[in-house]
């Protein structure tokens, strides 16, 4: 049977505030275990949380960037469960009154732009980190002992929950990419999946194509890159389809993505049956935001990727695709736009950025900040081609030298004596010489074999050491032969 996948994503994004959500401890990644903790982080009795205002601001930014309604009244709740990485045995989160709700995010699919609903984006605290030693690796219940590091505990998180609007692993991948791009644009998170500042869980179910009713879903956890997320969702769709085809049922459960075996696996069933006993956090007051506060944050938002893309298309005459590529990362968009100030041929600049420059950066594993040349120099190259000073073949050589050494294209052209010869008289002399040296070819041409002109052009170019303007050579040759 043909099935339609139904996918919803939950993305946890660590905010890059200087301090934690409820205390003054630092949030730096990678420091020695338990060096960024205080009595509150360790859940000592008597400690009380105090809300980090910057975290609320960042969370509202996320809500606005995802077109959410920002709640004028929201509150924190306690999510109760026992686990050694959770020192209070409850996580301070948001339950029925999230800060942001009812938003959406547009993604680009093969069929065009698709709008994905964002159910909510709420604020909560991160848990600590456990390292399990000995026994069956990676599991608390089977390890010889476990070590707890509470440095991460209490770092502010925003959980972004999508509607079940995604219909394929590719769409899920596109959603994640677009979401990460927005989060980087508004500068609220490092979005570093290796360091865990961006994490993702997927709810996946399938249903016979053409039906409405949702199938039984599974939740996939532990997908620590977008690539793994895509693979895991693809695997899970196939696994569920195979079950249904055999007449079996999908069990509602949490599953882990196993990177080594490339499959999803059942998590311990005990861990699923949670009753979190949510209730309002009595140690914190509700979050009440004024219209003015929200508007001020709205005003502070930078231009978001979708708006920037549309502007690039209209302002610089780029194709929608090129606009999409150049706005896929804010640093890239900024790099392009700074460059566009230095040339009239923005499209030419865009082509170089997305073409040779991207290829060479990929090949040499370089980022924009590693480049030895700036936008001005690349524009110089674009303008040299535009002016006909060098031809495209020469341009590639010049670019390579600029890329490797950071030298100015004009200087390369000068020092190598590359400037294209566009003087008709000089070309005429060369043409005459070639015609005189190749009478049989001239005869062939006149006899009707017009294709031989290419050979003659080549000879002229060779004679000029590649510097002659090929367009002019062609014109002059034709004129003389046809005369």
């Amino acid at each position, binding site marked *: 049977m043909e099935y339609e996948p139904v996918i919803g994503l939950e993305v946890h994004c660590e905010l890059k505030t200087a301090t934690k959500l409820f205390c003054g401890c630092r949030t730096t990644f990678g420091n020695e275990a338990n060096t960024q903790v205080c*009595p509150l982080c*360790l*859940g*000592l*009795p*008597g*400690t*009380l*949380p*105090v*809300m980090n205002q910057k975290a609320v601001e960042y969370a509202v930014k996320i809500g606005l960037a995802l077109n959410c309604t920002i709640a004028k009244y929201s509150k924190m709740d*306690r999510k*109760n469960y*026992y686990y*050694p990485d959770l*020192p*209070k*045995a*409850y996580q301070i989160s948001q339950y029925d009154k999230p800060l942001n709700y009812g938003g959406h995010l547009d993604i680009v699919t093969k069929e065009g732009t698709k709008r994905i609903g964002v159910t909510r984006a709420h604020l909560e605290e991160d848990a600590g980190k456990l390292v399990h030693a000995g026994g069956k690796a990676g599991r*608390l*219940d089977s390890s010889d002992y476990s070590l*707890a590091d509470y440095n991460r505990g209490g770092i502010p998180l925003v959980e972004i929950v999508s509607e079940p609007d995604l219909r394929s692993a590719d769409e899920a991948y596109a959603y994640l990419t677009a979401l990460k791009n927005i989060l980087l644009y508004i500068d609220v998170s490092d979005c570093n999946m290796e360091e865990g500042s961006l994490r993702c869980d997927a709810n996946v179910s399938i249903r016979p194509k053409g039906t409405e009713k949702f199938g039984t879903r599974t939740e996939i956890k532990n997908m620590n890159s977008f690539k793994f997320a895509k693979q895991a969702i693809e695997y899970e769709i196939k696994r569920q389809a195979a079950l249904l085809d055999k007449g079996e049922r999908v069990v509602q459960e949490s599953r882990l993505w196993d990177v080594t075996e490339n499959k999803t696996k059942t998590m311990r069933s005990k861990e699923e049956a949670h*009753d979190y*006993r*949510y*209730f309002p956090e*009595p*140690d*914190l*007051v509700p979050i009440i935001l004024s219209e003015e506060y929200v508007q001020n944050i709205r005003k502070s938002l930078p231009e978001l990727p979708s708006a920037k893309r549309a502007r690039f298309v209209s302002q610089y005459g780029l194709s929608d695709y090129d606009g999409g590529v150049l706005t896929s990362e804010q640093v890239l968009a900024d790099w392009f736009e700074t460059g566009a100030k230095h040339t009239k041929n923005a499209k030419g600049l865009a082509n170089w950025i997305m073409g040779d420059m991207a290829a060479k950066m990929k090949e040499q594993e370089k980022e924009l900040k590693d480049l030895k040349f700036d936008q001005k120099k690349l524009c110089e190259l674009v303008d040299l081609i535009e002016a006909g000073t060098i031809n495209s073949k020469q341009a590639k050589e010049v670019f390579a030298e600029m890329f490797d050494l950071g030298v100015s294209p004009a200087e390369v052209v000068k020092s190598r004596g590359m400037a294209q010869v566009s003087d008709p008289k000089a070309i005429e002399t060369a043409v005459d010489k070639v015609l005189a040296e190749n009478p049989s070819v001239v005869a062939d041409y006149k006899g009707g074999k017009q294709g031989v002109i290419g050979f003659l052009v080549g000879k002229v170019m060779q004679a000029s050491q590649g510097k002659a303007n090929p367009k002019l050579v062609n014109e002059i040759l034709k004129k003389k032969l046809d005369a």
Partner: protein
Amino acid sequence: MELHQKTIHEVSADLKAKKLSSVELTKAVMDHLEKVEPKVQAFITITRDEAFKQAAEADKRLATGKDITALTGVPVGIKDLLCTKGVRTTCGSRMLENFVPPYNATVVEKLYSVGAVSVGKTNMDEYAMGSSTETSFYKKTKNPWNLNCVPGGSSGGSAACVSADQAFASLGSDTGGSIRQPAALCGIVGLKPTYGRVSRYGLIAFASSLDQIGPFGKDVEDCAIMMQVISGHDSKDSTSADIPVPDYLGEMRKSVKGLKVGIPKEFFPDGLNKEVSEAVKKAIEELKKQGAEIHEVSLPASPYALAVYYVLAPSEASSNLARYDGVRYGLRVPGENIMEMYSKTRAAGFGPEVKRRIMLGTYALSSGYYDAYYLKALKVRRLIKQDYDKAFEKVDVIATPTAPNPAFRFGEKTGDPLTMYLEDIFTVSINITGLPGLSVPCGMSKTELPIGLQLIGKAFDEATLLRTAYAYEQATEWHKQKPSLKEA
């Protein structure tokens, strides 16, 4: 009168005048404390050495004459659920038998900042859950008026130590009556401030939306002195209110002429103890004599207060006490796996009353029951609040009995938790509404046990409570009587 028997306002003048040193005063109190402690058993930890260090520091401060308040150099007791840096804080529980906090509660910090001297950590019902201090893991504190009777609870140690002159004043906490009821049973003054008046930072939580720290004093003036120091906004407690603190001592001395006192009929039910009822009514007569107007008010939802309380408080407690899991601090009983460690630790660390309330609260918050219990209780909480709002449109202060009976005997109510819970019947609605309440001695039973008058005020109007209580106290002698420290 011996030195330890005096009040703060009596000794502080001598301290300021350097007629008396804090070390002398502390020695007098400490000697008496240790002498009677075998009888009273008010303390879990006595901090003799620290006390003398603090007294010496206080004497240096007194010598300079700078930054002196009425509490400078004065020995006080601290309930053992207020975190004290370097001094173990047990919360009356085996779970925290060896827990030494690395920080001071804000109220403790405030007391220290004015040079008060701590004599020790007082006994209490385990995690403040109880009305007799009998659920303490450590000891049974005796009522100084009759050593066969309970001191009330949960702040039984804090009340008994002040009553027995083991400290000039003390700090307690009140979640459902835990300051006012033991104050009434021990014949002293106890004040539960408005929710948010005093920072809860460093108070080991029982029920966060109800807990409030407050003082015990030998008389109203001493309570006012303590309130002046501990009140005020604290950036470490988001629920503490940023509202100016009035001059309590100044306000206290104003007349009650024209003051409107409300009497809620719901607090004088038919079956009420005759001695209690008569003592409270006499006290109201005294206020009337001084020019207060007496009005009957109605608080129709108050019969539901106890039910609301026993849903909300255990619910919050079930979450607040979940952190005692043996992982990071406190008791740990090893197990084969993490679940076994959790359950063995909690089974051994908590006493039966705490377990009962954790189970009650866990049940009330469970999915499928939340709406019927927790949410319903929140709705009734609002109705109770509305009753008080309405009553306070008419009156300035409400007068009721503090406890339904004078002190009872050990074991009398431990068999049936519900009879114990009824001890809080007149006090819980004040925690539910967040209003301030004060208990002041207003009589003595035939069996020589004290009776308390409860005064309830508008939010953040502790000043009117102190004024009313002070006016009453000035006309009576109850607060001057001293307990026998005998069995009867």
